[in-house]
């Protein structure tokens, strides 16, 4: 009997849910808010949305969330159906794809009215621009960052990775770390030869760009050969993990060789510190990516991560922008959201929440402050096909790692393939 009862209730419940969705749409302006993330982000985001609807009773906010891995498939499907959620969380790697294809709403005409950007400096507003127009506003600033096992570093008597550590120096110190570990199956560093952000920082240290302002690939075959040779050398001297270990790493938190306990140093983003710490037993710390000899500046930049954008197809443009503005600029919202998505880009919000941060959040915050004097400006926007170039880089580095190509051959092959991908768009 019990099971039948549950089944019936569930059936009625499901049916009710179907009807409820429509009834709601009539009662109020219903805005759909879509983001990727885990449990904690969902809690913070929902609370913030609730706070908004309390003061705006005519608005209903329907939160929709899935993890990063499934986020873009679903968004692309909805975009194809002209059914994108009104307010969507957007990533720097995708905003160009969506904005240039007409999927997003240009926000310039709302600035100063529905959209409050008063607490934002020009640099962080520029981060959300595509071809001169604002399509996204940052919920949190971050930057690329080494995440490393500080506890083991200290225990082994290795000096912490304080700026500046040149790439050459980094190689020596990682080889030394592997030796000091005296453990089979653990190495100093991740093999970051397949990581796009690492390559970009390295290229910018050399005065090049990953992509030129004209949307061409910015490095020469020789640059790429040098890059692959650097990591081949790293592997040869035992400074980083061997290729068959690196291949387990899908460049995310859960599979990174740092999390798997195979390396002490990982290449990541500063706002991922919390995520990495949750699955690592040792105390972790942040450090800047290596520096280029003779260049006092880092190739790193402050990245507007985790932006909010508005779908071009939304039927409630003003209301959607207002909701978005509440998330990025309101101090009460800022208190609820914390630094879970990164350091708030709005100075006003940053000041209000500073006293309430825990140790991890404080470290993320101080890291952003520390690197500010040495970072470079935002690079030119990536062209269409940039996402595929990242996959190509990963694969090419594996080809060198598994000794199926020399660094020199890989360098010219990469340039040829990357150029082909970008010209195809």
């Amino acid at each position, binding site marked *: 009997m019990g099971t039948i009862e549950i089944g019936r209730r*569930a059936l009625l419940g499901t049916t009710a849910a*179907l009807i409820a969705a429509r009834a709601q749409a009539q009662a109020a302006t219903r805005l*759909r808010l879509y983001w*990727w993330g885990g449990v904690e982000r969902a809690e913070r985001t929902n609370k913030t949305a609730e706070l908004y609807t309390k003061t705006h009773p005519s608005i209903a906010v329907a939160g929709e969330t899935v993890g990063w891995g*499934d986020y873009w498939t679903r968004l692309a499907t909805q975009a194809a*159906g002209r059914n994108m959620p009104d307010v969507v969380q957007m990533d720097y790697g995708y905003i160009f794809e969506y904005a240039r294809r007409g999927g997003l709403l240009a926000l310039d005409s709302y600035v100063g009215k529905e959209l409050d950007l008063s607490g934002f400096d020009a640099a962080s507003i520029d981060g959300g621009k595509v071809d001169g127009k604002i399509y996204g506003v940052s919920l949190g600033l971050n930057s690329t960052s080494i995440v490393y096992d500080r506890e083991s570093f200290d225990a082994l008597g290795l000096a912490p990775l304080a700026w500046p550590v040149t790439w050459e120096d980094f190689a020596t110190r990682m080889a030394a770390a592997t030796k000091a570990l005296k453990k089979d199956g653990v190495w100093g560093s991740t093999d970051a030869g397949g990581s796009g952000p690492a390559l970009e920082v390295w290229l910018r240290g050399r005065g090049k760009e990953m992509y030129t302002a004209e949307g061409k690939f910015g490095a020469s075959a020789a640059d790429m050969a040098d890059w692959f040779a650097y990591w081949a050398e790293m592997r040869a001297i035992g400074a980083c993990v061997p290729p068959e270990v690196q291949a387990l790493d899908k460049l995310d*938190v*859960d599979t990174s060789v740092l999390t798997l306990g195979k390396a002490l140093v990982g290449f990541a983003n500063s706002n991922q510190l919390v*995520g990495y710490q949750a699955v690592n037993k040792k105390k972790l710390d942040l450090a800047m990516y290596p520096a280029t000899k003779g260049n006092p500046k880092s190739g790193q930049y402050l990245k507007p991560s985790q932006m909010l954008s508005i779908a071009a197809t939304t039927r409630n443009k003003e209301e959607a922008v207002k909701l978005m503005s509440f998330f990025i600029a309101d101090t009460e919202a800022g208190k609820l959201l914390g630094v879970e998505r990164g350091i708030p880009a709005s100075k006003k919000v940053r000041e209000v929440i500073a006293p309430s941060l825990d140790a991890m959040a404080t470290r993320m915050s101080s890291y952003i402050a520390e690197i500010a004097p040495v970072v470079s400006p935002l690079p030119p926007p990536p062209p269409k096909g940039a996402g595929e170039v990242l996959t190509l880089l990963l694969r090419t580095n594996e080809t060198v790692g598994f000794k199926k190509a020399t660094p020199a051959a890989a360098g010219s092959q990469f340039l040829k393939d990357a150029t082909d991908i970008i010209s195809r768009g």
Partner: protein
Amino acid sequence: MKPSWPRSLLAHAVLCAASLVMLYPLLWMLASSFRPNSDIFTSISLWPDPFAPGAYRRGWSGLQVSFGTFFNNSLVIAVLAVIGNVTTCSLTAFAVTRLRFRGRDVFFALMLGTMMVPYQVTLIPQYILFLHLDWVNTALPLVVPKFLAVDAFFIFLLAQFFRGIPRELDEAAVMDGCSAWRIYWNIALPLALPALGTAAIFTFIFTWDDFFGPLVYLNDIETFTVQLGLRGFLDSSGTSDWGAMFAMAVLTLLPVLAFFLFFQRTLIQGIATTGLK
């Protein structure tokens, strides 16, 4: 034909050894659900140490909607899918194997053809179709197709079993003045019971495990299925609660296992029905 006991012992030894390989993943999942998050990726043992049972509580009520809601949603969808698939696919399979009419073979070829198209490319046009029907964000896109026999795998499966039923049976029935419906209902269905049980089990499991359909069609968390709920604990770009995911994954296996154990009885009943002959 009962085998003699030394041979039966040997068979048991082989089966037990094989079972161990089959069972390891489940035990490992169970162990992982009692591990702290920082242990899950580095341990291959089957004994969680330290023992951390908190994941079940975190998992059940950690998302904004209780996991029980996801169970209900999945159950409703899976049960409806079973009913739909078994009835309409058996009707279709019966028609293409036991009845004669023009175009029959062409239709059967078309059915097989639909199995060959990868869903990755029909997904978008289908999504747009369901959007126009205003079915998105409801369970209808996941259930209604099952009542329209779109799953050719099951048509083909049942067709193969219907083909095995001796023709003399239908012929005798036709002589007796039975309608096609009565042949279907009184002869074909009872004889194909093991196949129907198989279809029911598979439909339930495939629907329960389906992730792509719910991902695309269900937006509100109140309508989520268990598979969507499980992914709710994971965010590969940031913070994941793997312990909670494993804990709920273990619970998620229970209904499918129960359904399987319950319906596998129909597979055994097959012995009795073939005795009819």
